[in-house]
């Protein structure tokens, strides 16, 4: 009971349920939507950031991976170049 309270330091928990932009099912062809779940380096945002449920996060992640295979989205780029 005290262990849980020690971990409670989120100022505003549940940042955004972004997939609730009226999308019930994630489409891997919807590049504009999936882009929002990528960092500028092309990595998939963590659940902590996206505030999605595990199921949603998984759906988004597989959609991104499918889109990457078809060159719709970039793969993560190693370092901030320049």
């Amino acid at each position: 009971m005290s262990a849980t309270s020690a971990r409670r330091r989120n100022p505003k928990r549940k940042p955004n349920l972004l997939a609730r932009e009226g999308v019930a099912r994630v489409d891997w062809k919807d590049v504009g939507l999936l882009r929002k779940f990528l960092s500028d380096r092309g990595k998939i945002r963590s659940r902590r950031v996206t505030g999605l449920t595990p199921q949603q996060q998984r759906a988004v992640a597989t959609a991104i991976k499918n889109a990457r295979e078809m060159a719709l989205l970039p793969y993560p780029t190693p370092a901030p170049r320049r």
Partner: protein
Amino acid sequence: MRHYEVMVILDPSLDERTVAPSLDTFLNVVRTSGGNVEKVDVWGRRRLSYEIAKHAEGIYAVVDVFCDPDAVKELDRQLGLNESVLRTKVLRREDTRTAVKA
């Protein structure tokens, strides 16, 4: 019979107007096997996120197909043999319609 979604990336040096007809000849495999081509959507030229076979862009096309697993497999194989096809992807579409047992 199942609902599939086939995405194809074609060589950008092709004429975009020839894409739909040439794609259609490929889709005859589906039709002869008793399947149904529901939708052919040619997105047109698009920048690729990374180079594929030295190409910076490609012509995208998405085909919705309702057919047997063997038919898509054959379609995918034939597409892959074609030199002007850079990449293909076949996915099941279970959301739009439940599979009909047959």
